[in-house]
Every structure is written in C-alpha cells, then in structure tokens.
C-alpha cells in the first residue's frame, strides 16, 4: 500500500482596513496585544500582551497575568510599512519548539479605501515531519476531539 505525502497549500487570507499602511502595520505588529483573541493562548494564564520586537531576529512572545512569558517565534523580515515575515514556532500542539519553524508573511498595500492586508502562513508540510505531534493534536481533548464535540453541539442546535 502506498500512502502519498500531502503537501498542503499555504493558508492565505486578505482583508481591507480603513487606515493607511503605516497605521495598519503598527496595529498589526506593536499593537498585536490589543486585538489578538484571548482564546488563542498557549498558556493556562491569560494573555496580558503580545510582543514583537521590531527588528530581524527579534522575539515574538506573549506575556501573562502570572508574570510569565511564552515564546511564539521570531522576526524573519522587518520592512515597515509594507511587509513583515514572522517565524511561527508553535507546533501542532501549540507549544513552542525552537527546532520547528513555519513562516507567516504579512503585506500592507495602499488602496483607495485604505490598506489591503494579506497574510500567508506557509511551510505547513513541516507539520507533517512532526507527525507524532500532529497525532497528539488530533487526540487531545483541546484538539480535534474538542472541536468534534463543538461540531456535535452546533449540529444539534441547528437540528
């Protein structure tokens, strides 16, 4: 039996915001702690801020109510106000892994209505190289098991 290796396409998203690129870049990066959903947290302690050190090689991390910090990754490219590339070093279980890295590129392009913001999260095939950890995500209560329960609840509510 042969099992083909799947190389997933990058996740690509875009949105137009009513602000100039410099402002959009600033809110996205130095203001990340103001908009990052609190539910997207790698730690038990609630997030107090999300910090991106504004330079290539800078850290990307969250700070928490208990005084702790949690690394997320590092800055790979820093070109305000047009572009930034962040190294996303959270594995499939949302734990920081210094030996694991995927790229998140964000671009800011001026438009008549404001700024077109695009986001690309790529190198997702690297998760495949950590297949055991992905398996963990599928099986964990907070992972796919939890999501499946959610689908169940929603399906019942819709019925």
């Amino acid at each position, binding site marked *: 039996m042969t099992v083909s290796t799947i190389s997933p396409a990058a*996740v690509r998203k875009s949105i137009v915001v*009513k602000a100039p690129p410099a402002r959009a870049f600033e809110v*996205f990066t130095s203001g990340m702690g103001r908009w990052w959903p609190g539910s*997207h947290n790698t730690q038990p302690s609630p997030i107090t801020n999300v910090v991106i050190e504004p330079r290539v090689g800078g850290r990307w991390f969250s700070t928490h109510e208990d005084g702790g910090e949690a690394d997320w990754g590092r800055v790979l490219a820093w070109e305000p106000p047009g572009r930034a590339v962040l190294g996303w070093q959270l594995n*499939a279980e949302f734990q920081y892994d210094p030996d694991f890295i995927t790229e998140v590129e964000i671009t800011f392009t001026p438009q008549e209505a404001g700024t077109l913001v695009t986001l690309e999260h790529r190198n997702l095939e690297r998760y495949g190289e950590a297949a055991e950890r*992905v398996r963990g995500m*599928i099986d964990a209560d907070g992972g796919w098991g939890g999501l499946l329960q959610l*689908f169940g609840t929603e399906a019942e509510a819709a019925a």
Partner: protein
Amino acid sequence: MANAEQFFEALGDPTRRRIFEQLRSGPQAVVDLARIVPVSRPAVSQHLKVLKQAGLVVDAAAGNRRVYRIDPHGLGPLRAWLDQFWATNLDAFAAAVEKDETT
C-alpha cells in the same frame, strides 16, 4: 485543497462525524464502516468522498477493497484549522484598526 468551509461542512454531518471518529482507531474498509453506521454502503462511500475532499481522510486500494484512514499527517484538518484561526485573527485586527481610526 480543503478549506475551512469544506471542513466544517464535512464534519457538520453526524454520520460523517461518526465515521471520522471511527477511523481514529485505525484504517477501515467501507464494508466495515457500513456496519457501524445506520446507512447503506453506497451512502457510506458518499460520506467518505466528502471527508476525502475536505482533506480529512485518505484512501488506498487493498486487494479488491478500498481502505480509508485519517490523513496520516493530519495536515488537512490542521490546515483547515489554521485557515479558520487566521480568519478570526484578521477580523479582530481589522476591528482594532478601524476603532482607532474613528476615535
């Protein structure tokens, strides 16, 4: 490639969710899956097709049978999850930018 919408749709159906959960214990043939869900074998095949298109399962021929398993790398579901994750985040980001601009 699967997107979040396909993913949600694929798992929004209770029978498909049941099939997917069954495959978590290991690869199975259509005929075996048909025994555990209250639908016909052709219906099971149809459900598996939807799960496959959503990137949740893969299939392979084993003799004259077709065996299904969860995507061995879990990348289909993972990608769909990340797709949803960034969509939520960008919406939150846009709301923050525009709130600033109007105050």
